[in-house]
């Protein structure tokens, strides 16, 4: 895989992360369910996962950039595994509404494991790391849109979390936006 193809793959990864963050927002606003602290932490780990692809697009693919995403995915998997284990006992209805039979945190665990596997597979392709300045070109419009989409959704999460938690620690089982409370 050439460096240019690797960058295209990184742009695609950013769109996938943007879709995931948007889906979490959709569940929050359409179903009216506020994310719990562990749910917010999983969103944060997905947003943190995006820094590796952004660096790959800007500076070219490097193993260290993929390592950042791997670290974020491993911590994210640990967080979602803990939430799955919190609700694993028979009779526990789980937290929030299930989507296609699985709760958000279970989907998040599947997403983080998929990210770890995909990142490891991409790291196997050494050709992308060969230095060829002639092959490098500035990020195109599609890459710019992908980066700004992810940044925009993360900014939206800053606003949404501030509304939900206010200026104090988030509730374990939030039911109301603290800053909109009368």
């Amino acid at each position, binding site marked *: 895989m050439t460096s240019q193809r690797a960058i295209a793959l990184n742009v695609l990864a950013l769109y996938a992360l943007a879709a995931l963050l948007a889906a979490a927002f959709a569940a929050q606003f359409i179903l009216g369910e506020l994310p719990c*602290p*562990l749910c*917010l*932490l999983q969103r*944060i*780990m997905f*947003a*943190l996962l*995006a*820094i590796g692809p*952004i*660096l790959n697009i*800007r*500076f070219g693919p490097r193993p*260290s950039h993929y390592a*950042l995403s791997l*670290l*974020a995915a491993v*911590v994210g998997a*640990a*967080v979602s595994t*803990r939430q799955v*284990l*919190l609700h*694993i*006992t*028979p009779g526990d209805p789980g937290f929030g509404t299930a989507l296609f039979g699985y709760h958000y945190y279970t989907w998040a665990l599947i997403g983080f494991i998929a990210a770890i596997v995909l990142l490891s597979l991409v790291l196997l392709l050494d050709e992308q790391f060969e230095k060829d300045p002639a092959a490098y070109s500035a990020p195109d419009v599609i890459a710019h849109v992908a*980066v700004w989409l*992810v*940044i925009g959704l*993360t*900014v939206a*999460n*800053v606003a949404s*979390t*501030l509304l939900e*938690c*206010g*200026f*104090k*620690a*988030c509730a374990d089982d939030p039911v109301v936006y603290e800053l909109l409370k009368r």
Partner: protein
Amino acid sequence: MEFTALFLAIVVAMLVAWYGSRTLALSLFAAVLIGCVATFLHHATDALKLSF
């Protein structure tokens, strides 16, 4: 509040990764990751009921 701060720090790290220096972006990433692990350990205090 801590989650708002973490999201905000990620926005800053993303902007630095896109416009600023690579070294600073890597340092910010490391700081945010440590903050995330600390937040996780702070919230992961409930006992897991795994015996069934």
